[in-house]
């Protein structure tokens, strides 16, 4: 087995949607789903410490969400 590192995995980029008109979108960073899980879900973000609200998630290339090509997903963490 080679010691060389494999290709760098790309994570899911997450933005917090504005809650009021005029508020900017906030980039939260890049995150990975828990081992063995395909996609990042609302409960994962909650576990990461994200507060209630609406988030927009961009899936990495080659890992679209369900739907024909959908790489974008709205994720809601309820109050």
């Amino acid at each position, binding site marked *: 087995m080679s010691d060389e590192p494999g290709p760098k995995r790309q994570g899911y*980029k997450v*933005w917090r949607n*504005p809650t009021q008109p*005029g508020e900017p979108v906030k980039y939260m960073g890049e995150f990975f789903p828990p081992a063995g899980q395909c996609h990042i879900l609302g409960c994962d973000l909650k576990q990461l410490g994200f507060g209630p609200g609406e988030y927009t998630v961009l899936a990495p290339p080659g890992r679209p969400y369900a739907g024909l*090509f*959908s790489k974008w997903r709205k994720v809601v963490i309820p109050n």
Partner: protein
Amino acid sequence: MAKSGDSELIDVPQATGEAEAWGIELREWMELRTHVFGNADAFGDFISEDSAEEEWRGRVAQVLIENGHAPKANRYIECCRYGVRIQCKGPDAHQLFSPVYCDLRYCPWCGPRQFARLIEKHSPAIKAVTRERKPGYLLREITFTSLNTGELGSAQIKRFNDDVKNTLKKLLRRYGEWGALWCDEVGFNNTNLHAHVLVYAPYIEQSVLANAWRTISGHSVVYIKKAHVNGPKALVHLLKYVSKLPADVPEIIGQLEVAFHKCRRVHALGVFYDFSGDDTDNIESEWTNCPHCGAELERLPGTCRLEKLIMEGRTFVGTRRVKWKRELVH
């Protein structure tokens, strides 16, 4: 991120900076904005039902961005899926909306709209020459072709159009009241540039036409025939490809849009230029006053998914055409 979500006013350097900071493409920045500011859950389902079209439009937009047309790319992404809120200034404050259109040549939605506007614009002249035909004059179809070099750029298209114009003028300037209308086309999924011309003129010998075309353009293939239908049907036949996409690969559509930047596709000469009609779409499809009470209308900032605007109970008020877009009948 620009707060308003206004499709016509994006700050490209700011957008590029944010996209770089977040490690995403500018195209994705545009998509993100449309998702955040226009996200609609009108049908109780998070998954956008037009994700296939979004992917298609995103790939076309990517080519436009790479060639320095970011605002066009943004319009292409939002076209017909987003709208602007229009507010009535009357006492009842009627709530209205108007869809966003990109008005680009190779948009599956705006192409047919441009086709309808072109028919409206050029029908009066065609009807006039059909009604009162001069002796010896007929509607004929000429096809000018150019050598397919495998590439297509603005300079090449402009030169081709100049060559068509100069050839027609050389052949027809000795006659009075001739007219010509032509439409640039490309072969399906390729760069084979050619022009279909509807010409109202006396008989032109094929060999004379071929000589003139060769002398002026250097290209050799051109042919003429009597229009197989007459009057407005000939116009529909000429312009039909304006309403159809010339490729099924989004990257080719993007490259064509770049190549035709600032180039007209449809040209008129002679009586067809002099007697082209008004573009009634500019006058009749834009509401300047509230259709319910006649009060003034005000556009609110931002764009939003059409489903969401409908769910807000807003009434459709037709196209909103800013001044520079009114010139876009090409």
